């Protein structure tokens, strides 16, 4: 039954059904609020200023990684290399400063460039080498981690003060939260307002239709992976800035958290769907659960079990909802 749209025209929408639609479209947000309320009731330590700032800091690295990954997933790709690329960028930046005696700002820009370049290489492999993005970025995951170890010889390297600043405070506000907000705004702007951003949705929704409409598909693919690399580089700098040193094993396994955040946020791995606000909520859900379980003294072993269940349930609910909406 094609002619019938399930959602009525906006002008006819009543207040109640509009609220219902909002809730249906923002399941993860509802989950986050419920989670917050439950933790507020369960422990007095949850809703305190320091704890909320702590959540913000913890969310920053995952969220920034996940913002970058959102571009890739919207364009129907996947980037498994973000954790490794973050580590390589951080290590490269620290190396430029400590071993290369470069000024701090060069270390910052250099770190971001390393991330962008790594992403672009994956992008080239996907766009021109016709490698599935899963494989291309799996390779990059290994290559970037390897290079990180090569550069550092397996030892931590001190970061530039400019990088450490990213991990510090701006007045009472922690810098990671500032970076998180700015990165989120930039990512949302790119996706919603730029031609390249709209092309990402088109390529993810139907690559062939996009190509035949004149969308430069290869350029779009390289761009999404380069952006993912850039955001991974930024996340790497954030992480090393907090520790004042780049660690060779930093951010290992973070790609899975980032993918989880994007998917909990409502993006589809099939492409064409995804929003930065959703991704932010997804990242917060993950961090709030960890934070809450810590406050409730649940062992970190069990935390992993809970996170796994949450991912499965969140995505399960989402796809059930989609299935129940005939088009």
């Amino acid at each position: 039954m094609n002619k019938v749209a399930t959602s009525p025209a906006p002008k006819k929408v009543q207040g109640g059904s509009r609220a219902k639609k909002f809730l249906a479209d923002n399941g993860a947000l509802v989950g986050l609020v419920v989670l917050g309320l439950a933790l507020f009731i369960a422990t007095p330590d949850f809703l305190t200023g320091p704890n909320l700032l702590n959540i913000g800091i913890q969310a920053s690295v995952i969220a920034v990684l996940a913002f970058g990954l959102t571009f890739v997933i919207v364009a129907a790709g996947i980037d498994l290399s973000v954790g490794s690329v973050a580590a390589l960028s951080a290590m490269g930046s620290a190396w430029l400063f400590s071993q290369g005696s470069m000024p701090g700002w060069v270390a910052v820009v250099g770190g971001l460039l390393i991330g962008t370049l790594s992403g672009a290489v994956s992008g080239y492999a996907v766009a021109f080498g016709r490698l599935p993005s899963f494989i291309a970025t799996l390779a990059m995951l290994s290559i970037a981690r390897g290079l990180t170890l090569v550069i550092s010889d397996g030892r931590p390297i001190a970061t530039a003060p400019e990088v450490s600043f990213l991990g510090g405070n701006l007045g009472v506000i922690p810098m990671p939260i500032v970076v998180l907000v700015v990165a989120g705004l930039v990512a949302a702007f790119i996706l919603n307002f730029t031609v390249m951003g709209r092309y990402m949705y088109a390529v993810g929704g139907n690559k062939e239709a996009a190509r035949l409409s004149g969308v430069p598909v290869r350029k779009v693919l390289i761009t999404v992976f380069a952006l993912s690399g850039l955001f991974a580089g930024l996340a790497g700098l954030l992480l090393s800035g907090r520790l004042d040193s780049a660690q060779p094993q930093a951010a290992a396994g973070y790609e899975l958290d980032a993918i989880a955040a994007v998917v909990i946020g409502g993006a589809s791995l099939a492409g064409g769907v995804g929003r930065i606000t959703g991704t932010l909520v997804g990242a917060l859900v993950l961090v709030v659960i960890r934070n809450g379980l810590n406050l409730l003294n649940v062992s970190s072993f069990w935390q992993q079990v809970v996170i796994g269940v949450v991912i499965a349930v969140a995505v399960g609910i989402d796809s059930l909802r989609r299935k129940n909406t005939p088009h």
Partner: protein
Amino acid sequence: MNTQPILTLDNVTKSFGPVTVIKGVTVHVHPGKVQVLLGENGAGKSTLIKMMAGIHQPDGGRILVDGNVVQITDTNASEALGIATIHQELNLVGSMTVAENISMGRFPRHFGLVDKRTMRQTATAALAMIGLDIDVDQRVGDLGIARQQLVEIAKALSLNARMLVLDEPTAALTKREIAALFAVVEDLRKRDVGMVFISHHLDEIASIGDSVSVLRDGEFIAEVPADTHEDELVRLMVGRSIEAQFPRRREWDGPADTLLEVTGLSTKGVINDVTFSVRAGEIVGLAGLVGAGRTEVIRAVVGADPYVDGSVKVRGKDLPKSNIGAAIRAGVGHVPEDRKGQGLVLGATVNENVGYATLATTAKSGLVDRTGQRRRAQDIADQLRIRMHTLDQPVGSLSGGNQQKTVFARWIVANSSVLLLDEPTRGVDVGAKVEIYELMNAITAAGGAVVMVSSELPEVLGMSDRILVMSGGHISGELAADDATQDAIMTLAVRDVQRDNEDKLMEDGHE
């Protein structure tokens, strides 16, 4: 009819949210009879079928099987009642064998292992029922679409189906394959299988159907015998008579400049030395059998595929090879063969889909011109009468005709003056077909040039000013609209150009 119907949908209704899509429709399916459901896209045919298949349940009315009221709660229930539905998208696993597909979900076991011998026997028996002689160990994916369809029918019969619902089974078939399918239908009729048949090809109805239920906007309009005249069927379907099915008008009185010039175009292994040109205000039909290379010519011209030799000129300027962007900038628009797979991003909104070709050209320093884009999309949607609730609804939720109009809208917004249409009315209902023809008239009236690939000869004859016929990758002949006939086209379509050329060379050499 005196026989007890196998299935009756009795005064059924169905709503999705606030929209009622079926309003009190009654349909009977009798053993050994073919009941045709006729209606435009969106008239409610699919919903009725889905009720029979157990995918949707009616909100009102009753479903009777053998005179008893039943609830068809899901597809399993439908199957258990002996109702099998052959959807357009076939339910087969291409990488598995014919035998495995026929026994899918109920593999015969022998000590916990798959009993391949019994499975092959089941498959052979099922295929014999419809006289299909193929190797049961062949992978289904290696069969053509027509045979896959027959395998699916055989599978249904091996499940003891006594009623088949065929949803546009002929849409993707060639003439010969359709004849084979109809022979099977004829055979099933003798076995007292009841059938429901949906098709957009009116000419098929008389040859295959017994009775026609006409639907319009979810309402039951009439039940008429299948030999009712086509014009009358169209009138019942669209609620008004259509003056001419092919309203070709030539209204361009400007200079007949050559807009598109294709010279010696050859691709690797498919098309060979194709040369033609199209002038302003002209529609050139590209006819030929499936596989003759028509789609390949179009794809090479618009830059979708590379070519090894030849040139493409638009308004006298060479187009670079396989560069879609350059072709679009030169004013070339392409309505591809497969609307859902190649024409549209189904999950994206109507607004977005209209804008893809013009996003970059209307952008200001990389930023999308959102207001302008919306205004242009709304204007063109109004102008082309794209029936939708809002610009923000996914284009996949529109009917086939309105989806196709959305593809056209993209090129009209982009000011394309050379349009290459590949089966522009496939899967589109009669009313929307005429709207698309009018659109082609409007494009040529404004001085545009159109190339139309179509497998429907009446359409080619009715809408083209000139007809090029392709055969085996060559242009085998050209016919003026006035002296073209279906026979003339078919004669050229089966001509072996390669051999003719060689013969001619031989003769020239001897003389």
